């Protein structure tokens, strides 16, 4: 059960030849409790190379807890977490990074007062020279950071400027460029478009698609079903810590996705109650039974 014991099933898995189809990251019935609060329960999730798995959910649905488990900030308390078919339990983000799992956090995990290039290489600095005089290879780091950022369409004249002086979109792209550069096999993006304007969101989505083309597995966490549907191959909607919907692109339409995201199921169950209240238009709310078919929600329904 726990990854700490190298049990028999670990040995069996080693014999399986690596296949293209084997998921990079897999959660089986994973969950997490903080004391007596169960933030996440029974979540199944697979991430394949060259695929974008979207995780959608409202505030408090457990999205953050989910990525914290995968990125190594927290440990799961139930179920299994497998990387390349091997059960794992990360105790630090460093271990996740070493397995090729890189996370771009909502707060971007940058140190505002540090220069752009130092931020780019923070935690994975390039060095040169033997141990007692091992030092940062500043020239190479600056050059590489500049190249990588130019590839992302960001041209900075001065890589020495504190990253806190860049705009939100620029910082986001620096963070993504950093993750892609460090050979991430799995890229976790925590609401990368939440704080961005329309155009900048487009840029970020473009890089998600580009990362997929490179064969990375992407976990894209978002509030926005439109953004998710543009790039996603598989969609998981979380609600109250459990998976409410898990469907591949061919099985779900944008309308359905939007509906689930907008709390369609909850609203449907509330429909009866809402109908008693004057001034609430419930005509267009879906019935609970309708939720597998494309249904539209009215924007007034959610307030």
């Amino acid at each position: 059960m726990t990854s700490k014991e190298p049990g028999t099933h670990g040995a069996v898995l080693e014999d399986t030849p690596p296949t293209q189809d084997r998921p990079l990251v897999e959660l089986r019935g994973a969950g997490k409790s903080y004391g007596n609060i169960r933030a996440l329960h029974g979540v199944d999730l697979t991430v394949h190379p060259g695929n974008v798995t979207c995780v959608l959910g409202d505030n408090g649905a457990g999205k953050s807890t989910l990525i914290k488990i995968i990125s190594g900030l927290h440990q799961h308390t139930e179920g299994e977490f497998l990387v390349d078919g091997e059960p794992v339990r990360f105790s630090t983000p460093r271990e996740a990074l070493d397995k090729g799992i890189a996370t771009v956090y909502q707060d971007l995990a940058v140190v505002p007062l540090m220069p752009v290039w130092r931020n780019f290489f923070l935690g994975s600095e390039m060095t040169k020279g033997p141990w007692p005089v091992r030092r940062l290879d500043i020239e190479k780091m600056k050059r590489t950071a500049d190249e990588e950022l130019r590839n992302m369409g960001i041209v900075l004249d001065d890589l020495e400027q504190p990253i806190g002086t860049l705009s939100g979109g620029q910082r986001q792209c620096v963070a993504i460029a950093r993750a892609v550069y460090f050979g991430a096999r799995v890229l976790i993006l925590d609401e990368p478009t939440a704080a961005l304007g329309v155009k900048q969101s487009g840029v970020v989505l473009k890089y998600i698609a580009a990362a997929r083309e490179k064969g990375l597995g992407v976990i894209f966490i978002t509030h926005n079903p439109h953004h998710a549907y543009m790039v996603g191959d598989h969609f998981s909607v979380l609600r109250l810590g459990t998976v409410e919907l898990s469907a591949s692109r061919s099985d779900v339409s944008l309308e359905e996705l939007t509906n689930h995201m907008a709390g369609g199921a909850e609203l449907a169950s509330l429909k009866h109650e809402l109908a008693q209240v004057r001034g609430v238009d419930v005509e267009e709310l879906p019935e609970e039974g309708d939720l597998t078919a494309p249904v539209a929600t009215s924007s007034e329904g959610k307030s």
Partner: protein
Amino acid sequence: MSMTQQATPAVETPPASGQKQSDGRTRQRPPALRLLARPEVGVFLGAVAVLVFFLFAAPPVRDGSSMANILYQSSTIGIMALPVALLMIGGEFDLSAGVAVITSALTASMLSYQLTLNVWMGVIVALIVSLAIGAFNGWLLVRTGLPSFLVTLGTFLILQGVNLAITKLVTGNVATDDISDMDGFTQAQKLFASTFEVGGVNVKITVVWWLVFAALATWVLLRTKYGNWIFAVGGNKESARAVGVPVTFTKISLFMLVGFGAWFVGMHQLFSFNTVQSGEGVGQELIYIAAAVIGGCLLTGGYGSAIGPVFGAFMFGMVQQGIVYAGWNPDWFKAFLGVMLLGAVLINLWVQRTATRR
């Protein structure tokens, strides 16, 4: 079905081109501003101003031996101000640094005297004790998540009490016994408290150590991984941890570095005065912190340099001795310091706002 119509165009909107980002809206900051953004520039100008002032106001300062004395005074503060500054850049500060110096000196002195050991044994044990105190501070901080103010205030009070009580218990006095006739004393004195001559002027060895440590600290801070980590854990601990910086290791080792500094200064005091007063050291921790802050280190962490505190400590030494050479009442010293500290803080604040403005 109104939602469907709204949703469809959104799906078909092609992602905007990445080239839009490079629209030349970022421009190079002027070189003068970029220079000012360096943490040590303000204090450098301040140190020059203080030096020039006393060169005029106190003619004896112009003499080489006075300058050597001023540098010696600065070095005893400066050696400790370095690790304290690194720790501050790393986002923490250590109120126990002042009494830890005395703890270290007392340990070495009493251990060698009471057990009649070679003083080097005492020196080595004192180093271990000092590093252990630093490690304890760091460990408690990381473990509990309490602010360093509280954790080190605790160790400050503990050490202050332990210094007095154990010294009284062991020696029956408030000071330790003279160890100057013990084995290894001359050797150790050579390392920690000797004097050498340069062009007819007697210079204390601590001045050399001070500059060596400063050069080393600057190199580590700006040119190594560890230095990068110091800035990162002070600037944003959570982010640093998330990108794989060993935050716990960095914080604890920084506290141990302060322990090392305390040991070194403690050994200097022991081997220059042969005996240690157990009640000393209280208040020194604030002098070290002030030197680091005057040196351009941000009290909240993530910003600063190792060169800045060198000038900061020099300003201290200069003012302290300059007042004496000028023949003024030395009581003015602390008032001077206060003005300097406030001035430095205001300059730092202004510089940072101007230089990092978007």
